[in-house]
């Protein structure tokens, strides 16, 4: 742990001096992951590449603020998400009402038991079409819910890290995850019914 911290400090010092090979190594290590994240957020290949480039530019400009409290990847992801919001001009505010909440509630009776068993999606998940369906359903997930969902489910970040990056409370994180997951599930259920 201490060694990793020292190594990070060394990399940051070299980047402050704009050491070309260190910069190339950092780009080599993180650009592809950031690119895939941008694509997952719904940007096309050109926009995604621009976004990654912007992220590294801001990273270099803000090196003095990087005090080693977070790791380089988390710092980069934070910048990428802020830039992504700027590009999408997303005004991130809490959505008090989301129709998916009523859909979730409608699945249960007054005692809190399932009205009917959740649909069987086994065949759908085993099919070749699942990849396309996932991507279509993800497009229906509002931007902020998608951000949270991807950071958790694809990037595997911890709740604490996600809350820090997106400036969320743990409760709000839970609400967004719940809505994203249920929206995806309901979308796949609808596609599964259509397919059969």
């Amino acid at each position, binding site marked *: 742990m201490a060694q990793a911290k020292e190594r990070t400090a060394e990399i940051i010092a070299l980047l402050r001096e704009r050491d070309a090979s260190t910069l190339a190594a950092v780009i080599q290590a993180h650009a592809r992951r950031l690119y895939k994240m941008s694509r997952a957020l719904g940007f096309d290949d050109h926009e995604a590449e621009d976004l990654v480039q912007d992220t590294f530019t801001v990273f270099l400009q803000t090196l003095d603020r990087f005090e080693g409290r977070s790791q380089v990847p988390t710092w980069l992801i934070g910048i990428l998400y802020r830039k992504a919001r700027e590009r999408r001009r997303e005004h991130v505010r809490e959505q008090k009402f989301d129709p998916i909440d009523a859909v979730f509630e409608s699945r249960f009776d007054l005692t*809190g038991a399932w009205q009917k068993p*959740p649909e069987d999606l086994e065949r759908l998940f085993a099919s070749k079409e699942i*990849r396309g369906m996932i991507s279509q359903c993800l497009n229906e997930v509002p931007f902020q819910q998608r951000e949270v969902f991807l950071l958790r489910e694809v990037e595997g970040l911890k709740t604490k890290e996600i809350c820090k990056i997106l400036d969320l409370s743990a409760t709000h994180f*839970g609400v967004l995850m719940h809505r994203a*997951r249920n929206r995806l599930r309901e979308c796949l259920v609808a596609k599964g019914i259509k397919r059969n």
Partner: protein
Amino acid sequence: MLSCRAVSELLSKEEFRDAPLWTRFAVKAHLAMCRRCSRFARQLAQIRSAVRESFSQQEADPELESRIAQKIQHETRN
């Protein structure tokens, strides 16, 4: 006794992870007995793997890193 609704919400909100020990135990016990909720839990896990797989297969141009490095170096020189 937790209801199916409460269990499903705890699972999809992930509150279950940080919940007190007795809640975690109650969720596990419920899942062991309830086929409907265990199907719901399984679907959340399947969605996770399908999304991960879908993005792991995402192609990126092999020249991506070198192009970005060149642009950034050009920017920093100016």
